[in-house]
């Protein structure tokens, strides 16, 4: 009964109007797919970090590290007693740079013989079959060769590597050749092995990394019959000084922090698509319900209760919603495969090797995205559905039902109020560092409010139509004076898309300009040398002290500033302790110190104070994260115990999000006995040819990269472009979706003006002239949306630059207004709007009058 009626009313109607149904489905699908794809790609990139942290073996219950620096393996026997209840896995890590493919790899060294002790006792027993001699030989290979590595299945496959193959590259700046001893296969039920992971036997890794006797961490897991609490309490008593116990979550969280900047971009963007899609859905359903208003009116008249009518409409929405969501999930998965590579590359470039090559369809994410799409669909249909259900039939049939003008004054005022509220929320309160919820909420308010207020731009744009002489101008502009729901939705959706694009774009530009200025101002050395493959703070490549000495002694060099970086645990957080040559820096370099003009006197003072009264520079991010200011003191863990220092200056640094604390080199050496450095900055003697010197040094040391200030700036630009490439792509998608909505709106508007179009044709207006009128109206909507969006974008950019970035990452950016970018965006939006609207306008110009109405006689 209801079934067949439902089938006829809903399914048949949808089938006959496939185009409309398809459009609604696609709106859902697009929103869902973009949202899902970003979340999936995000997950994959993050998982690859956590994969690194988890290493090769089974998950552990606890991790032991040194507070600062490496663990001395000689102290390992002190933990012997804990081995009754827990297995212990020693780990050392380092970086390997493969020259041929310019890829960064992570070397993980662990005791390959002892690793069996931590295998799950539920693992199938080997008894019953004689050991495979080739397996044994392989095993001996991996522990009896100092250059043997086990590679991941993914790496072996992608590069066609077999056991015995050679892999050439650099460790620190030393050329190193490794040989494949075996291929690690993925264990069922465990996360896939990182592609760029090279596993070595521990002594071989220590030798290759030139770190004899050192370990980076110990992983511990309880044996059967013991509990993690026992492990915890047992360990605390026996840990040597400077060794700390870390819970595994802390490890994973460091990976999460490293990608926070990136992930935040993506998450915000994933919401645009959804927002824009939602707007379109509202419009699509509004139009759809309206078109069928005769059907609903007839049902009413025949005595069908409102509730039933409502159910019909909602059933239609549910059907479209589920089909659209399903399609969206599939498209989203597809899209994720494409974006994960680019995200992975970016993350690898910024933070070190990441190897996600494909994004699995996580069922949870798929369901979430699908559910959101479905719910938005239902929500979008709810309001028009209720209207259709409860409006008396007569009114439903009334001719002007579709074109009732909207209460734009209300929307505009509400919109402005929301925008104002958002701006107030963002800028007024001062919250502790790391807290940014207010900025996120404010952004949403500004987006929502701005899009509503954009509706109010249309009457403004339509104003000239009142006094216009030409009929084209009158007919194109005057409808804008009384915008309908269709006008409003389309303009609002476009405003959101343009707003996000503008906001992000301006923020990125500001960011890039700030960093470029910083580089230009602060990096004054002639040449910067670092091991090949060291990018960003995550690199573990280091130059030996002897090499740095050699570089400093080069006849062309006036002074050398050696920079070393050490990851350190301070107050429970991970950060960096660095060392620089303050004397050299004071004489030749430049540091932008906050609140002071010249850094030289401060640097010189710190140099003179030496170890007796240690002073340090803290980066802006550091000072925000740890809440320290000039004059504050800090205790730093060293292998020989805690040492005290005082903060003498805060400087601007955009190099990393963890913050850094810099001390003078002699102090660093006294504390850590570490002569290596991460990079060397060379100041050349006057008259020296920078390019020639660079070339000479590069040739002599194949494992070094030699860059000039200009090179660094170019690299920064490259990194920025890569980082934000994905956001640009997504913004374009958002714009495309909004434009689709614009076209849909224009078609709807044209349908509503069928009578007029008919009249004009009867009066002898040409198709082109009529199309021009419709196009003009459409462009008016587009312009309102674009201008509204640009305004939203500027406010958004202010929030991002002035509030979000400082709160989340701790650095100050200078807001710069990229006029060129804005003009480009405006032009692009209008151009694409025209291109999209033109065919639609031409098609609409050929519409015939409502046949039924005219056939009355």
């Amino acid at each position, binding site marked *: 009964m209801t079934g067949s009626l439902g089938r006829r009313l809903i399914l048949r109607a949808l089938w006959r109007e496939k185009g409309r149904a398809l459009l609604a489905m696609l709106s859902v699908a697009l929103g869902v797919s973009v949202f899902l794809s970003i979340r999936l790609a995000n997950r994959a990139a993050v998982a690859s970090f956590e994969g690194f942290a988890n290493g090769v073996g089974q998950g552990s219950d606890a991790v032991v590290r040194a507070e600062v620096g490496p663990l001395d393996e000689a102290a390992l026997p002190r933990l012997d007693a804990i081995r009754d209840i827990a297995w212990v896995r020693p780990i050392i890590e380092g970086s390997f740079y493969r020259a041929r493919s310019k890829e960064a790899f992570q070397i993980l060294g662990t005791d390959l013989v002892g690793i069996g002790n931590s295998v799950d006792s539920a693992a199938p027993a080997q008894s019953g079959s004689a050991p495979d001699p080739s397996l044994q030989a392989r095993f001996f290979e991996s522990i009896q060769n100092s250059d043997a590595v086990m590679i991941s299945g993914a790496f072996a496959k992608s590069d066609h590597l077999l056991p015995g193959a050679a892999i050439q590259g650099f460790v620190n700046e030393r050329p190193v050749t490794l040989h494949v001893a075996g291929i690690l296969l993925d264990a069922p039920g465990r996360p896939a092995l990182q592609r760029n992971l090279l596993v070595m036997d521990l002594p071989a890794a220590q030798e290759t990394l030139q770190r004899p006797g050192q370990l980076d961490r110990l992983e511990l897991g309880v044996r059967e019959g013991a509990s993690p609490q026992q492990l915890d309490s047992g360990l605390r008593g026996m840990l040597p000084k400077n060794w700390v116990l870390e819970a595994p979550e802390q490890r994973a969280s460091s990976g999460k922090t490293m990608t926070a900047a990136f992930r935040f971009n993506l998450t915000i963007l994933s919401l645009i698509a959804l927002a824009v899609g939602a707007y379109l859905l509202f419009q699509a359903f509004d139009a759809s319900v309206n078109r069928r208003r005769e059907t609903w009116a007839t049902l009413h008249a025949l005595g069908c209760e409102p509730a039933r009518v409502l159910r019909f409409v909602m059933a239609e929405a549910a059907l479209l919603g589920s089909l659209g969501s399903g399609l969206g999930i599939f498209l989203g998965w597809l899209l994720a495969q494409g974006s994960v590579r680019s995200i992975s590359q970016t993350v690898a470039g910024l933070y070190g090797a990441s190897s996600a090559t494909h994004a699995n369809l996580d069922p949870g994410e798929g369901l979430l995205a699908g559910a959101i799409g479905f719910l938005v669909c239902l929500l979008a249909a709810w309001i028009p559905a209720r209207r259709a259900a409860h409006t008396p039939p007569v009114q439903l049939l009334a001719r002007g039902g579709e074109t009732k003008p909207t209460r734009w004054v209300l929307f505009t005022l509400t919109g402005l109020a929301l925008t104002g509220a958002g701006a107030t929320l963002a800028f007024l309160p001062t919250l502790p560092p790391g807290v940014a919820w207010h900025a996120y909420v404010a952004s949403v308010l500004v987006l929502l409010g701005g899009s509503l207020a954009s509706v109010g731009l249309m009457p403004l744009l339509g104003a000239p139509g009142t006094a216009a002489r030409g*009929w084209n101008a009158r007919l194109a502009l005057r409808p804008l004076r009384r915008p309908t729901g269709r006008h409003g939705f389309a303009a609002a959706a476009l405003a959101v898309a343009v707003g996000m694009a503008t906001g992000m774009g301006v923020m990125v530009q500001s960011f890039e300009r700030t960093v470029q200025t910083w580089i230009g101002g602060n990096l004054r050395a002639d040449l910067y040398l670092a091991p090949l493959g060291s990018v960003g703070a995550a690199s573990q490549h280091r130059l030996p002290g002897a090499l740095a000495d050699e570089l400093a002694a080069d006849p062309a060099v006036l002074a050398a500033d050696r920079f070393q970086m050490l990851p350190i645990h301070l107050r429970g957080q991970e950060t960096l302790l660095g060392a620089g040559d303050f004397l050299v820096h004071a004489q030749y370099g430049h540091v932008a110190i906050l609140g002071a003009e010249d850094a030289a006197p401060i640097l010189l003072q710190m140099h003179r104070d030496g170890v007796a009264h240690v002073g340090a520079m803290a980066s802006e991010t550091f000072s925000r994260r740890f809440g320290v200011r000039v004059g504050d003191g800090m205790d730093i863990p060293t292998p020989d115990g805690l040492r005290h220092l005082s903060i003498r200056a805060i400087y601007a640094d955009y190099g990393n999000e963890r913050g850094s604390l810099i001390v003078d080199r002699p102090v660093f050496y006294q504390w850590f006995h570490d002569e290596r450095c991460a990079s060397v900055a060379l100041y050349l003697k006057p008259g020296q040819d920078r390019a020639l010197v660079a070339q000479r040094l590069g040739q002599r040391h194949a494992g070094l990269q030699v860059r000039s200030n200009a090179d660094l700036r170019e690299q920064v630009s490259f990194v920025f472009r890569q980082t934000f490439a994905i956001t640009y792509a997504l913004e374009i998608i958002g714009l495309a979706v909004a434009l689709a909505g614009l076209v849909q709106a224009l078609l709807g508007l044209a349908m509503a003006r069928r009578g007029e179009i008919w009249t004009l044709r009867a009066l*002898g207006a040409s198709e082109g002239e009529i199309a021009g009128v419709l196009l003009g109206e459409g462009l008016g909507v587009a312009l309102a949306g674009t201008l509204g969006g640009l305004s939203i974008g500027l406010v958004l950019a202010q929030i991002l630059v002035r509030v979000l970035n400082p709160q989340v990452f701790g650095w100050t950016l200078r807001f710069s207004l990229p006029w060129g970018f804005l003009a480009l965006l405006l032009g692009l939006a209008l151009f694409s709007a025209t291109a999209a609207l033109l065919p639609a306008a031409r098609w609409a110009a050929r519409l015939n009058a409502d046949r039924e109405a005219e056939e*009355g*006689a």
Partner: protein
Amino acid sequence: MAILEGHGIVRRFGSRAVLQGLSLAVEAGERVALLGPSGCGKTTLLHLLGGLDRADEGEVRLDGEDLAAATPKRLAQLRREKVGTIFQFFHLIPTLTARENVELSLQLLRWKPEAIRGRVDELIRAVGIESRAEAWPSELSGGEMQRIAVARALAAKPLVLLADEPTGNLDRASGESVLALLKDLTDRENTALVMVTHSESAASLCHRTLRMLDGRIVEGSL
């Protein structure tokens, strides 16, 4: 020579043949009434005569020109210059004032603004809506709207005026006044008039009455 001719016009919509080989001729200045039941194809015929639709078979000639051979551009031009149309539901552009609606025809012909002003004033006086010239269609009564439609249709001094149930939506008084206006104005300019109507009193204003049934002319002289 007939100003408007049709020979053997056939027009089908899907499988339904609305006009089945219809022929007629209208002389310059002649007023012809088309009577017939609903659905007999009167409106369709009107559309074909005005070049708003194409016949499937047969021939329609306007001022000697074969409409079937005309391009859409030419048809539009013809409609601008030689044909005026009045509809049952008025079809005034809602975003234009009464005056602006009348101006529309002449703007389409790209007349100069001063010329337009003069002619429009004249027409407004002729149809008697001076006091309502600046009003919006939503503010006008049915009779007023139809007068404006008449003014708009006759603005360019067309050869033929096609009227589809001009009094269909008006009360008797307004209807009669509009009919009187039509007779007066078409007489003055020697404009031919083909009027689809139900009303006998409307038909009585015409020189000839044709009756249609099932897509053919069944009564009245050709």
